[in-house]
């Protein structure tokens, strides 16, 4: 999956000369925490976050006076060397950028212009899509030896029971690296047949556990 498939294109932006006050208004109105600062040609100049604004605001103990600080232009407080990404980057890659830099938002640049924005929330939403959790289905987790061909064997069993797979995730089995965990989301209300078949063929179904199926 690439960035342009998940980025938002409805951009809320500020000019460097806009007042900080304006940033506060926009953040409240659109429920966002980051606003890119661009020139009239949409060249990215910086970014302003809700934390930049908090830093610029006086103490909450000084509530009884006007915030003259908020009359200043945003370019005085914006972050200038912004970390960015590109529409054809992989989502996996930018997820790592988020993680490594501890940031929550990435402006997306194409031919030198701002064309989109991706936030941590978009990444989480993508995770939901990847796990298939937005479609009706049941989830089962199977422990398999970490050798070639196991995924194919397990999916063959599901296919023999005419079960449509909505998503598959394979990840390390933490306690023992000679095993892997495969998580399936299958399109059925009744996963018991699949669980029986897997157990019969010697696989360990981690969840739901077989003892919760036979009573």
């Amino acid at each position, binding site marked *: 999956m690439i960035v342009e498939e998940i980025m938002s294109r409805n951009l809320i932006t500020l000019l460097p000369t806009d007042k900080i006050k304006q940033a506060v208004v926009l953040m409240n109105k659109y429920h966002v925490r980051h606003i890119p600062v661009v020139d009239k040609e949409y060249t990215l100049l910086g970014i302003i976050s809700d934390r930049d604004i908090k830093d610029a605001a006086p103490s909450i103990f000084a509530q009884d006076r006007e915030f003259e600080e908020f009359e200043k232009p945003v370019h005085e407080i914006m972050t200038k060397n912004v970390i960015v990404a590109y529409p054809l980057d992989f989502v996996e890659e930018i997820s790592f950028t988020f993680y490594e830099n501890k940031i929550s938002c990435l402006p997306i640049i194409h031919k030198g212009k701002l064309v989109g924005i991706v936030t941590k929330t978009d990444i989480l939403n993508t995770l939901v899509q990847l796990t298939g959790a937005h479609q009706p289905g049941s*989830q089962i987790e199977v422990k398999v030896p970490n050798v070639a061909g196991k995924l194919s064997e397990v999916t063959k069993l599901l296919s023999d029971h005419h079960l449509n797979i909505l998503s598959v995730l394979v990840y390390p089995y933490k306690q023992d690296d000679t095993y892997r965990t495969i998580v399936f989301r299958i399109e059925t209300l009744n996963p018991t047949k699949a669980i029986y078949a897997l157990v019969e063929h010697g696989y360990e179904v981690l969840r739901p556990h077989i003892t919760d199926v036979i009573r």
Partner: protein
Amino acid sequence: MKHDALFVYSPDFLTYKFNAHHPFNQLRVEMTYDLLKALGALSDQQVMKPRQASVEELKLIHHDAYIQAVQKASQGLLSKDEGLNFGLGTEDTPIFPNMHEASAYLVGGTLTAVDLVMSGSTRHAISLGGGLHHGFCGKASGFCIYNDSAVAIKYLQQKYNARVLYIDTDAHHGDGVQVAFYDDPKICTFSIHETGRYLFPGTGTINERGYGNGYGYSFNLPLDAYTEDESFLYTYETAIREIAEFFKPDVILTQNGADAHYHDPLTHLYTTMETYKHIPKIAHELAHKYCNGRWIAVGGGGYDIWRVVPRAWSLIWLEMTGFTLKEDLLPKNWVDKWSKRAQHPLCTTWSDPPNLYKKVPRKKEIEEKNSRTLQNLLFPIRGTERNKNVT
């Protein structure tokens, strides 16, 4: 007002049958009927014959193209690929002869119950063939073809201009009904279910609260696996009382899936008959408090048809009619009759035996988690009381 309650039933409900191995088995409706008869709690005058819902009525919720596909499938004329686009011909909803008629009959049963209540012939009515809450407007899902409850709610709204509170106590999320009224503030849906982390359909999180004008009128209470009676009933009762008070319905429609029981093979909530005693009691009380008694009950899931469903569903009727059980033993002739066909030894008492299952080790943690979910659920409607100490 002639009756306190009427029982919509016909052996034709049993024509909704996918195949011999399918877990959804309407024999449980006949077993319930038979149990109530054996008990002497159901007279012939209280039994009403259902009708088949018309295509026009189905169209209140379902797309034309979908209904036509079901009709074609019904005659064996739908191709495999065409069917799969509509969720027909899958493991969950296989195609069977006359499936349109059988499905429309279940919808008609629920509509019959609606008309009996709304015309004033009775205060309460029950149609256990219904409760097919996973059916979508254009797709079959989770054992459900047509969504009788969604059609009935739309019907209540259009024909009787009623504000409907839909209460879904099936162990699975009532996704089809929720989505049908997701943007409608005049219909309030509440579903309590096992969390969708592993369980079908996976939706029903607390954040699904509705959309547009309907925001704030969909309620979901997802409970952890191994919840047990105490926590189930505490969270359920607290939630539904506050939701009913918030919404003030004209009529209540309850979906009574009986699959949250310990014996149920598809779920893990670990409730017992204690839960199924209380669920209809609360519905009954709320119907009298807000709706002048108007209460329609339908069936739903329930996959231990021998040990669980007939007992659980009978309790709804006993509550509706105010019938008091004289003893805890089930009628012997009923037990003898059905024992011959049952795959498990039947339970011979209305209550479950004590120590039905081994103690759940994480009980306290699960209860705390459920209580927190409950508080988050009710937070928006508790409004100004938000600073009160809510326990």
